[in-house]
Every structure is written in C-alpha cells, then in structure tokens.
C-alpha cells in the first residue's frame, strides 16, 4: 500500500473531553468551513509559503524555503507570541507537520496503555478520508492497538462516499450542526449545509452517530424557526444519539469577529428551556 501522509496540526496525548475515557486526540490541518467563532482559525488553511509570517516574526525564528516548500522554525528563540498565526492571510500556521500512518502509530503505541481510544479532529478531518482509512486499518490490524475505540469529530460537510470509506473501522462520529437554515449556516460558516444535514441522517441510519452538537450563537441560530427545525431534526434521530448544546466562547477567535456576543449563563438556560418546551432535552457543555 502506498504510504499516504497527512498534515497534522497537533496531538493531545491525554484528553478527557473528546469522548469517553482518556483519549489521544489527533488534529488534522485544513477545513472546508470558515466559522466566525473558530477558536483555532490557524487550522483552516494550508501554507502557500508566502513568507508573510517569517517577515513578521519579531524574533526571526522562522525561515521559509519556497522552492523546497520547507519551513524552518527555531524553537529556542521563538517566544510563542503567535504573531505568525495572526498575520497569516491563509488562516494557516507554520507549525503543522506532515506525518505518515506509521508516524502516528508510533505516537499511539507510546501511550496505548493509558487510553480508551483515539479521537481524530480538525480542521476537517474527513477531508483526509483515505489517510484515515489506512490509519484505522493499521490500528485494527495491530495486536496491541486493535481494542482502542476510534471516534471522529467532524463538521459533517462531506459527501457520503467519504463516510463509506471509514465507516467500518470507526466506533462513532461526533458532528456539529451550526444552523438549520442554509442562509444562517452560510452567515456563520461561509458555506451552505445541505451535505451536513445529509451526513447527519446517513450516520444516524448507520447507527454510528454518537453525538450531535449545536453551538449557540446569540441572534444567529436562536430564532423560533431555527429552534423548531433543529428540534425536529434532533427528535428524528435515534435516542442513543447524545444531543448537546455548546456555549459559543470568544476565547481565541479572530479579531474581526469580536462583535459576536458570548451567551451568558442565563441566556444558555433560556435557550435550553426553549428546546425543552419544544420537547427536547439537551446536555449543556
């Protein structure tokens, strides 16, 4: 099998908030949505070697070789001020790494005794469905790793064939619903949501949808109509699917979206009550 590589923006070796048990979380670079409240906007794009970050770096800790498409980072002089991330016109980062399936397997082996499983996240991880397929097959064929659970944290914005590629190897999916109406979805994410709605129903039908999450953005996705439609959608899903309401947090969002209002606890409770009135109990995170 030809060895595929993927751009990995980060690995968290112990997470207690990305599924049941202690999990290793692998974050993939690049996303096909552009949410206003994205906390990690530097994982949205890919580097085009424009050198803007290297020029802006106050400690000259970055150098870029355009021809070889290589980035050099001096970790000793770097002060982690994140200027490079702020100036990047591509919503990218000079820090993500190209890794092979074997590279990731080695990382997992190191901590296998301490985890229930792995969660892959992004960016949008399903853009790497082929790579994921190889990674998951390697895990399932590995005597020491095959019992690990595999969860995918996705925005759902891909075609059915991508789900089919990984479905057999995966324990479950955690998907976001940003809004029901395509227009509101476009306001929040820059893109429409037809594929996402299809994905939600498809994964539910296959019994693999573990969690559906709504990020509450005041004045955007809290109209009566939105709440009614999201409630209807969630009610049609299996009762096994965990339905979650997440508070939009402004921490780490881009400056141009500073106008967004983070909901207060009272607002969260109020919107939760509206879902309850519509006949749906959501968990709050």
């Amino acid at each position: 099998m030809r060895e595929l590589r993927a751009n990995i923006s980060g690995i968290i070796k112990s997470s207690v908030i990305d599924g049941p048990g202690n999990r290793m979380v692998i974050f993939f670079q690049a996303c096909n949505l552009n949410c206003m409240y994205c906390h990690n906007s530097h994982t949205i794009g890919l580097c085009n070697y424009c050198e803007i970050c290297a020029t802006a770096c106050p400690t000259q800790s970055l150098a870029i070789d355009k021809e070889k498409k290589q980035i050099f980072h001096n970790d000793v002089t770097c002060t982690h001020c994140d200027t490079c991330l702020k100036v990047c016109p591509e919503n990218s980062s000079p820090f993500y790494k190209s890794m092979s399936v074997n590279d990731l397997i080695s990382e997992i082996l190191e901590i296998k005794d301490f985890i229930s499983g792995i969660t892959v996240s992004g960016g949008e991880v399903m853009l790497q469905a082929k790579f994921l397929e190889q990674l998951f097959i390697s895990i399932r064929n590995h005597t020491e790793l095959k019992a690990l659970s595999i969860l995918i944290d996705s925005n759902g914005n891909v075609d059915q064939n991508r789900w089919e590629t990984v479905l057999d190897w995966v324990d479950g999916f955690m998907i976001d619903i940003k809004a029901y109406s395509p227009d509101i979805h476009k306001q929040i994410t820059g893109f429409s949501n037809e594929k996402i709605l299809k994905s939600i129903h498809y994964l539910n039908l296959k019994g693999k949808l573990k969690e559906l999450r709504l990020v509450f953005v005041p004045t955007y996705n809290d109209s009566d109509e939105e709440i009614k439609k999201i409630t209807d959608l969630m009610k049609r899903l299996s009762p096994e699917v965990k339905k979650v309401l997440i508070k939009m947090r402004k921490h780490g969002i881009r400056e141009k979206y500073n106008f967004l209002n983070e909901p207060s606890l009272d607002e969260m409770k109020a919107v939760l009550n509206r879902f309850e009135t519509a006949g749906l109990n959501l968990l709050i995170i």
Partner: protein
Amino acid sequence: MEDIKNRVLEVLTDGNLDYKQKKHHLAYIAESTQAYPKVSAEAMEALSEKVICDLFEGSAPYRPRYILPDYKLALIRGIKYLELDPPTDFDEAINFLSILYSHVPSITGYSVYLGSIDQLLLPYVGDLTEEAIYKKLKLFWRYIDRCLPDAFVHANIGPEDNIIARSILKIEREFKQVVPNLTLKYDTEKTSDDLLEEAVKTVFEVAKPHIANHKMTAADFKGNYGVVSCYNSLPEGGGSHTLIRLNLKKISDAHKGNLETFFSNTLPKYCLMTLDVIEARMKYLVETVKYFETDFLAQEGIIKLENFSAMFGFYGLAECVNLLMKNNGQDYPYGQNDEANQLGHRILEEMKKLVDSRQLPYCEANNGKAFFHSQSGIDIDIEETAGARIPIGEEPDIYSHINTVAPHHHLFNGGISDIFHFDETIKRNPLAVLDIIKGAFKKGMRMFTFNLSDSEFIRITGYLVRRSDLKEFREEGSRYGSTLFAANSMDNADVDKRIAKRVNSHERTASQY
C-alpha cells in the same frame, strides 16, 4: 528535672490541646526520660541532626509502630482479655470491632489499621437489606471518625466488588470525614470497573480511597497484607516494629567526594547506621519491654512476632539526585531529565541491596530483612521532598510522571506513593481516570493516589485534612491530632500549590513539648 517539669507544665496549660491530646504528650515526655536504645555515638549524632529520623517514635519503644491485628481471627475466636465472644450477627461484629479498635496500640495512640472492612463484615450480612447495611455502617463510620480522630487510621476495601465496599464509598461521599483513611485494593481480574468507577467518583468528593495494585502488593507477602497509615503495606496479624527514615538530602549535603564515592562510602555508611538504629529499637521493644510476651493481642494470637518486621524508609531523593548531578557538572533536575532519573533509580537499587543484605532479628515476616519504604513525609520536612517523589510543582505531564516513577515501584515492598493531580473537568469523565490507573498499574505502579484541584480535602503527605479544619485550627485548635501536623506541612512544603488534601498526626506534636 526542672526541664521536664517545665515541659509538663507547658502541655498542661496549652489551651489548644484537649484532655486526650494532653495525656498523649505527657506520656511522650515521660518516655523521653529513658535512655535511647544503645546505638553508636555516630548514630546518636545522626539522630539528633535528623540525618536519621525516627519520626518521633520516642526514646523507649513500648509498642510496635504499626500493628495490623488479624481481625478476622479475632472475630472467629473472640477475645478473652476484652471479654468478647465471637459475634453472631452484623451489629455484634461492628460492636466487637469498635471495642477492639480502641485497644490497639500505636505511636499516635489510635490504631493505624481497621482491617479489610468489607471482608470482615461480609460473613455477618445475613439477610440484611442494602438499606439496613447502609444505616448500620453509617453509625460505625461516624464512631470511627469521632472516637479515633487521627488521619493515619486506615481502612481497606476490595478487591472484590461487594455491598459493604459500595456502601462505604457512598457513606464517604456523604459524610466527607477525614477519618478513616481508605485504600481500595484493585485487581484487574477481581475488581469490577463499576467498583473502581465508584471509588474514583469518591476521590472526586473526598480525596480517598487510594488505589492499591493488589496483585503486585500481595505477591510481596506470605499471608494477607493491609495498607495502613500513609501507604505502608504490611503483613496482617503482624506489622512493623519501627519505621526509621534516612534523609538523603542531608547525606548528600554532607558527602565529600565524587559520585562514585557516594555509592562506595556515604550511602552504605548511613544505610547501615539506619539499620543499626532499627535493630536497637526492635531489641528494646522485644527484649527489654517484652511487648510480645505481655500484650493481650500477642498472647491471644491476634498478632504474632513472626508476622513482624521493621521498615527502612528514606526521603529527599529528589534533592539528593539534584545535588549529586550538580556536583557532577550536570545541573539537570530529577523528574525532568533522563540522566537524573537514572541516577535516582541507581540510588534506590543500591539502597534496596543494602537493606536486603542485612539480616535483622525479629523480622521473620520478611525473612529477616526490613521492608523498604519510600516515606511520604511529615511536617518538619521543609527542604526535602517526600520519599522518591518528584518535587511539588515540578511534576511533568502525567505520562512522563508515571513513566519516571513506575520503574522503581517494584522495589518498595513496604509501600510507596506518588500523587497525581487532575483538573476539575475530569469529573465529567471518570472513565478517563480508570484508563490512567490501569495504565499506571500496567507500567508497574504499586499505588495510585490522585487529587482534584480546589477540593475541600487536602492531602498532605498520605493523609487528609479539611481546609476548614486547617483554618479553624490556626484560630482555635482542632479535634484531630493530625491537623496541627497538616497546618505545619501546609506552611512548610508548598502543599497548597499541589492541590493537595489534609490529615493529622501526633508524630510532630508529641515532640514539641
């Protein structure tokens, strides 16, 4: 004599002590009038300089430091001395144990071991309902906390899942008492995930139980074992005559020469001296005081001399390693650097060899050798880190932490502990803790203890204290002996920083007057 009179008067008039605490201190002063068991002048000097520390056991040992009565045998046979017949039902069993506990000697005056409570009581459950068991155990638990108010008093549960163990965990969460300290013996093959999860959720509330690697610990003992006081694993029906600990920081401070001469001269010299102190104290207890000929527990076979040994402890490994590394031109700290960690392992391996090569009298429980123990510290340890722990505030990420300490846990048949810290978010995902505990045991850890940040309970060294008790004590004294100990620890050792919890001991307080 004038000095003794003044010390006595000081105790009598100290408004922070209650009647029982005064009696305890007065006894310590009386004991201090006796000459220390015969050891070399050099060893006496090391004792007075606290290079070797006897943890305030007193100068004339008249009872073993750690006694683990064979409660099961006592329940079957009854106890003549206490005119107790074997119990026939649950109430009688609890009553029997409550009475017996108050007659078990220790250094602090309160029994350090209450037994594997679930195993002891299960035969008496009969047709009692869950609700009835819960109600009876609640009264029992309240009695233990109110009448044995010392945080070193320690109960065990497990490894099998059972109604008593579960009820105790429920009561712990409800009562939030400091006493008793609690250990769950965990065995992958015997303990259900459900029970372990209950235990983890209980730690979220009250910072206990500790989780012991049952299979690994049991393999070190001929018969049953118990976890007592602060992570000390010892044989049931016996215990440890004494615990003497070597201050590795002080011996590395005093060491003149290079790294190799530390191993060839300084370390063996002080280890042997510590063993001399252990031997002298044991002989005094057994031959001069004749404890095992005169105490009812020994006379009635509830404890046996052949089930005893002694404990060789140490503390300040981190400081010792750091200094030796620095003097060797490698200024890398223990816990964060592989070479420093390797040096730490080498020191521990070497000490273990020295301890194992010394035949001691009255240590039949461990084939004539002392149990090796990583001592978890007391309040006077200002500059020294407990046992072989990584200093508070310098711990690396949890996997590195476990991978650093796990390789030496196998050495400590007398017990060792490392404390891990979790953020409050883990409360939503207790299974994550189960994963980490199981991983730690796979890596060879003997004991797993963890805390949550900002808990009302603060673990000091191995025992617990409530934040509110600590505050109260500073203002007006406390019902628990160990709170003073904790108050001192808190002031001295940055334990606040560690998210820790608190408990009590009379070790320190006894020596103050």
